């Protein structure tokens, strides 16, 4: 069964989709089968950010309406064969996909993938809850701006209220020069203020900004790719450690040793 991780923030423009794409790539490079789901119906961008927009034939609305099978809508990445996206629709009719449809699709995807990364829309409307109800873990994305952190804090309360207790934090667009001049809040202080474990700190990167402005796709940018590989590793190995611990707990020990 796949781990279903939602990337959310509350505030728009903090880098959720970029982080989702880079994290997906990182996990796929570790050998995990990853599908990134864009549930921002109508304001879809994950396909462009992943550089797969020209390959999209069907989308999640087509799957929900029975126009195609899930496998037909999935698009794989040519440079990372284990990385797929489930594209969102560009139709502005956001009410077309119900929570039940989403659950059915994620349950089916869960059988074929190790990770389902859910790119959550900004805001806290119906679309937000539709994304949260599909997930079992959450990664909050924020920048060091007070407004973004404040929204992340509110979203954390909503996520916990929806029954997700496994929440971690990525602080995006950090500038160490500004931290040194005490003009920017340290990611550790942000995590402490939110009382959420810090999963990663992502520096502001010119190559990502340039890629976003020129091609839209960030997966070819040279910066931060290795950093997200490290973040992916801590998610992936963290799960492995938990599995080992669970394994040890399940072992029965008698006089003759472990049975």
């Amino acid at each position, binding site marked *: 069964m796949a781990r279903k991780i939602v990337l959310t923030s509350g505030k728009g423009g903090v880098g959720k989709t970029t982080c989702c794409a880079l994290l997906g790539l990182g996990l796929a490079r570790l050998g995990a089968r990853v599908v990134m789901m864009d549930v921002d119906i109508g304001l879809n961008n994950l396909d462009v950010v992943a550089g797969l927009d020209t390959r999209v034939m069907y989308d999640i609305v087509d799957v929900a309406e029975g126009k195609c099978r899930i496998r037909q809508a999935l698009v794989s990445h040519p440079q990372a064969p284990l990385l797929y996206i489930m594209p969102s629709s560009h139709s502005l009719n956001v009410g077309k996909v119900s929570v039940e449809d989403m659950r059915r699709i994620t349950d089916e995807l869960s059988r074929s993938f190790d990770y389902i990364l859910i790119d959550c829309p900004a805001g806290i409307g119906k679309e937000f809850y539709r994304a949260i109800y599909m997930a079992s873990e959450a990664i909050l994305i924020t920048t060091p701006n007070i407004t973004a*952190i*404040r929204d992340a804090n509110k979203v954390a309360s909503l996520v916990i209220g929806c029954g997700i207790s496994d929440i971690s934090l990525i602080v995006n667009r950090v500038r160490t020069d500004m931290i040194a001049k*005490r003009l920017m*809040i340290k990611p550790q*202080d*942000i995590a402490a203020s*939110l009382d959420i474990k810090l999963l990663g700190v992502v520096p502001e990167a010119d190559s990502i900004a340039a890629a976003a402005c020129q091609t839209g796709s960030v997966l070819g940018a040279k910066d931060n790719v290795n950093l997200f590989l490290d973040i992916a590793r801590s998610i992936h190995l963290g799960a492995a450690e938990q599995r080992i611990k669970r394994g040890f707990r399940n072992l029965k020990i008698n006089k003759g040793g472990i049975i």
Partner: protein
Amino acid sequence: MNNEPRGLTKLKQVLINDKHFNPERLNDVVSSDIFKLLQNYMEIDNSDMMSRIDLDEQGNYVLRCKVKCKRLKIMGLLS
């Protein structure tokens, strides 16, 4: 003297201010759950209980609860 960056001071202030705005009816729901729990151990009416959620200076929630109880249920007879 406060040594932390100005942004962090402001952030803490904003987050604490936000905590003042609890969702409506949260206190009612918490109160109702506590009431149900306490009914297992004591004879109380709704009017005997007052509860309130406040914030302390560090931004922690403090639940204040005052209950007047007419009679405790004897342990052997708990329902």
